[in-house]
C-alpha cells in the first residue's frame, strides 16, 4: 500500500535537502518514545502540493466498485425492494470480508436498516443482519436471530451454516453437531462435510477431519477461488493442530495462491510462521500490508521475536491503534490484544484479564491458547480452570495447547488447595 507521505519525501530528496530529511527521520524515531500515549500522533498539517496522495480508496476500475454503483442505483430506483437491498448489503459484506475493512459492515447495515425496522423483516434481510452481527463478534445476538430465522424457515442453508459456525466459536459443540446433521440433510454432502470436518477438527478428531476435508478439497473449476481458499485454510489449521507443520504450510500456500492478499489468511499464516520459528518469513509475508491491523500485529510480533530495532517504533504504533479501538468502546480485538500484551508487551496480568473477558465471547482454539498462556505467565493455574474444563469436555487436541495443559496440571497438582478454593468460588 502506498505511503501517503511518499510524495512529500520524494520532493525533499529531489531538492537534495538531505539534512532536513535526516532531521525529520531523527524526529520520527524520537516521536514514538516521547508521545507513546498520544493518539493523534502528528499535528494536523497542510500537504505541500495538490498532487500529494492522501488516501487510497477503491477505484472505479475495480469491477466490485462498479457493481456497488449498479446495485445502489437499482436500490434507489426501487427503495422498497428488500431483495435489492439484500444484494447490495451482501456485496458490501463480501467486499469488507475480502479487504478486511470493517467500514463495509456498517454500510451494509445502513442499507438493510429500514427493512429491519418493519414489524416482521423478510428472512433474507434478517440473515444479512445476523451475518453482520456475527462478523462484529456479537455472537449471542447473532445466534438468537439465527434461531428465530430457523423457526420461520427450518431448512435455510445459510442460517444453518452460519449458526453452526457461531456455535463452534462459542464452544457449543452439541448444537454445532445437530446443525451439521441438519445441513447434510438439507444441503447435501458438500456443506454437511465441511461443517462436520470443522467440528471434528475442534474435537480432537483431526485425522477424520482431514479425511472429510480431502473429499471436498477440490470443489470443481466453477467454484469461486474464495471457496477453495477457505477449505485450504481450514485444512491448514487442522494440520497445524495435529502437529503436521509441513502439510499445514502447503495448505496455507495453496490458499494464498487462490486469494492472494486475503487479510484473514495472511494473519493466520503469519501467526503459524511465528509459532514455528519462521518470524523472518512472517515479516516478509505481511510487510506490504501494514495498514491492516491484523497484519501489522503479526509484523510487530515477528519483529519483537527477532529482536529487530524497528520493533520499538512499531510497538508504539500498535499501541496507538489499540488505543483508538478502545476509544470507540468496542472490544472486537480482545484475543489479539491479549496475545499482544503477553508476547510483545510482556504484561501477563493485563493479558489474563483480557483473555478472561474474551472467553465470555469466543472459545476457538486460539482463544483457549492465549488464555492458558496468560494463566501460566501469571503463575495462576487456578484461573485456567474453566478453560481446562472446556478442553476436557470438548476433547480439543492441539499441539500448541497440549503442553500448556500439561504444565497447568502440574502446577495445579502442586497447589491443590488454591485450585479447590477457586473452584468453590467460581460461579
Amino acid at each position, binding site marked *: 500500500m502506498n505511503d501517503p507521505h511518499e510524495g512529500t519525501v520524494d520532493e525533499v530528496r529531489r531538492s537534495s535537502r538531505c539534512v532536513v530529511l535526516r532531521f525529520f527521520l531523527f524526529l520520527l524515531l524520537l516521536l514514538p518514545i516521547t508521545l507513546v500515549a498520544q493518539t493523534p500522533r502528528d*499535528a494536523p498539517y497542510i500537504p505541500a502540493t495538490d498532487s500529494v496522495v492522501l488516501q487510497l480508496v477503491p477505484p*472505479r476500475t475495480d469491477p466490485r466498485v462498479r457493481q456497488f454503483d449498479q446495485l445502489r442505483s437499482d436500490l434507489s430506483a426501487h427503495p422498497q425492494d428488500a431483495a435489492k437491498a439484500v444484494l447490495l448489503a451482501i456485496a458490501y459484506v463480501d467486499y469488507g470480508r475480502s479487504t478486511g475493512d470493517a467500514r463495509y459492515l456498517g454500510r451494509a447495515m445502513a442499507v438493510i436498516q429500514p427493512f429491519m425496522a418493519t414489524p416482521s423483516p423478510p428472512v433474507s434481510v434478517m440473515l444479512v443482519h445476523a451475518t453482520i452481527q456475527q462478523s462484529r463478534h456479537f455472537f449471542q445476538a447473532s445466534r438468537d436471530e439465527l434461531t428465530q430465522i430457523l423457526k420461520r424457515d427450518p431448512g435455510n442453508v445459510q442460517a444453518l451454516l452460519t449458526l453452526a459456525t457461531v456455535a463452534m466459536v462459542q464452544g457449543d459443540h452439541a448444537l454445532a453437531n445437530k446443525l451439521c446433521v441438519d445441513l447434510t440433510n438439507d444441503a447435501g454432502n458438500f456443506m454437511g462435510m465441511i461443517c462436520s470436518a470443522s467440528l471434528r477438527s475442534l474435537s480432537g478428531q483431526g485425522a477424520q477431519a482431514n479425511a472429510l476435508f480431502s473429499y471436498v478439497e477440490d470443489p470443481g473449476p466453477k467454484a469461486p477461488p474464495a471457496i477453495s481458499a477457505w477449505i485450504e485454510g481450514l485444512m491448514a489449521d487442522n494440520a497445524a493442530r495435529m502437529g503436521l507443520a509441513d502439510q499445514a504450510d502447503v495448505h496455507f500456500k495453496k490458499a494464498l495462491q487462490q486469494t492472494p492478499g486475503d487479510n484473514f489468511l495472511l*494473519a493466520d499464516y503469519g501467526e503459524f510462521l511465528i509459532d514455528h520459528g519462521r518470524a523472518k518469513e512472517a515479516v516478509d509475508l505481511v510487510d506490504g500490508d501494514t495498514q491492516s491491523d491484523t497484519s501489522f500485529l503479526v509484523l510487530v510480533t515477528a519483529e519483537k521475536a527477532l529482536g529487530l530495532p524497528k520493533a520499538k517504533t512499531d510497538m508504539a504504533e500498535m499501541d496507538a491503534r489499540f488505543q483508538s479501538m478502545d476509544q470507540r468502546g468496542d472490544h472486537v480485538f480482545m484475543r489479539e490484544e491479549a496475545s499482544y500484551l503477553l508476547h510483545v508487551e510482556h504484561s501477563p496480568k493485563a493479558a489474563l484479564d483480557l483473555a478472561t473477558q474474551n472467553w465470555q465471547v469466543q472459545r476457538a482454539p486460539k482463544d483457549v491458547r492465549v488464555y492458558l498462556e496468560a494463566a501460566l505467565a501469571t503463575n495462576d493455574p487456578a484461573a485456567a480452570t474453566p478453560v481446562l474444563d472446556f478442553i476436557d469436555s470438548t476433547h480439543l487436541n492441539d499441539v500448541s495447547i497440549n503442553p500448556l495443559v500439561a504444565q497447568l496440571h502440574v502446577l495445579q497438582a502442586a497447589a491443590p488447595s488454591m485450585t479447590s478454593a477457586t473452584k468453590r468460588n467460581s460461579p
Partner: protein
Amino acid sequence: MNTRKLFITLFALVVSMIPLSAFAHKESDAYLTLRTDTTNNHVMHGQWDIALRDLDYAIGLDSRHDGAITWGEVKAQRKVIEDYALSRLQVKGDGLTCAMQPTGQKIDEHTDGAYAVILFDAVCDKNIPSKLTVVYRLMYDLDPYHRGIVTIHAGDKIAGTVLGPANPVASLNLREPERWGEFKSFVTDGIWHIWTGIDHILFLLSLLLPAVLIRRRLQPRGDGWRASAALAETSGALMALTTQPPRYRWEASPRFWPACLDVIKVVSAFSLSHSVTLSLAVLGIVHLPDRLVESGIALSVMVAALNNIYPVVHKRVWLIAFAFGFIHGLGFASALAGLQLPAGAMAASLGGFSVGVEIGQEAIVLAFLPVAYMLRKTWFYQVVLLRWGSLLIIALAAGWLMQRAFNILIPGFSAIIPN
C-alpha cells in the same frame, strides 16, 4: 441446485469464514475536539477529524475515480465537506445557540489512514454554560457503527464522550456548575425580556402615567357618594353602570413623595403577583395555553390605558397592577421556558430571571419618574402623553388582542409594532 440457491450457498460459505479472526481495519471513527477560549466566553474552537474514506463514501472526494484521493481533490471540495459535516453538528445548552463557522482545512494522519481536519469556531449567542449538549449526526444514515469521539477542553478540565447514530446526544459538564455565573446570565435574560417586551412596558407606563397627577373632581358630592365611589374604585364595575361620566380634571401632584409612593405601590404589587405565577408556572404547578396568556396580557394593557381615559380606579391603581400581574407572570414563564432551563439549576435560573425582570422594571421606573415629575404640570404631559398616549396604547393593545385571541395577522400592524 438452482442459481439462487447456489448463490446463497456460496455467500454462506464466504461469510462463515469471518468469525475466525477480527477484521483488519476498525470501523468508522471521527474525532471532534472543542476548546473554550480564554478571552472570549461566547466562542469555542473546534477541530473535527473525519476519515477521507468516510467523506468519499458520503459525498465523493475521488473526483478522478482513480482510487487515490489527492490534496487537490480535498481542497476543491472544502465547502462541500464543511457544509456536509457542520450541518450535522449542534452545540447547545441553557438556551445557547451556536453558529458553526469554518476557519480552516488541514489533514491529519490517524492510525487507519488520512483524515480531513475541519477547523471551525462555534460562535454562540451567550456565554458557554457549565453544561454543554452536543448533538452529533455525522454518517447517521450511512453507517450505524460510525462513532464520534468527542473531547471538550474547558480550561484545564477535559470532558469526553463517544456518540453515534444510535446515541447522538450527550451533555457534558465543562466545569463544576458555576451557579453564580448562571444566575448572572439569567439576570441579563430577565432584564432583556422586559426591555424588549413592549407590552409589559406599556402596561407599566399606562399605570404610572397618572401617578404624578391628582384627579380633582369638579363637583364634589356628599359622603354617601364617596362610599359608593370607593366601592367602584375597588371593583371597577361602576363605569358601565354610570349613566353620566364623572366630571374631573387632572392636577399636578404638589409633592414628590406621595407620587413616588404611588409608583412604589404599583411596581411592588406588579412584582409580587407576577413572581407568584412565574414561579408556579416554572415549577409546573400552573399551566395556561400561550394564546390565552398572550391575549390576557394584551387585554391588561388595554384596560390599564382605558383607565387613564375613563378613570374608574385612581388611588388604588396598584390593584390593577396586582390583578394583571398574575397574567404577566405567566408570560415571563413561557419566555423562560424557551431558554431551556438546566436541570438542577432551577433555583438559580428562576431567581436570576425574576431579579432580572425586577431590575429591568425598576430601571424603567427610575428613568420615568423624574422626567414625569418635571413635566407633570405641562399641557404636553397631561394631554399629549396621558390622553393621546393612552389612546394610542389602547389602539395598539386592541390590535394585539385581535391578533393573539383570534390567531390572525392584521396586515401592516405587525410591521409597525413587533410582538
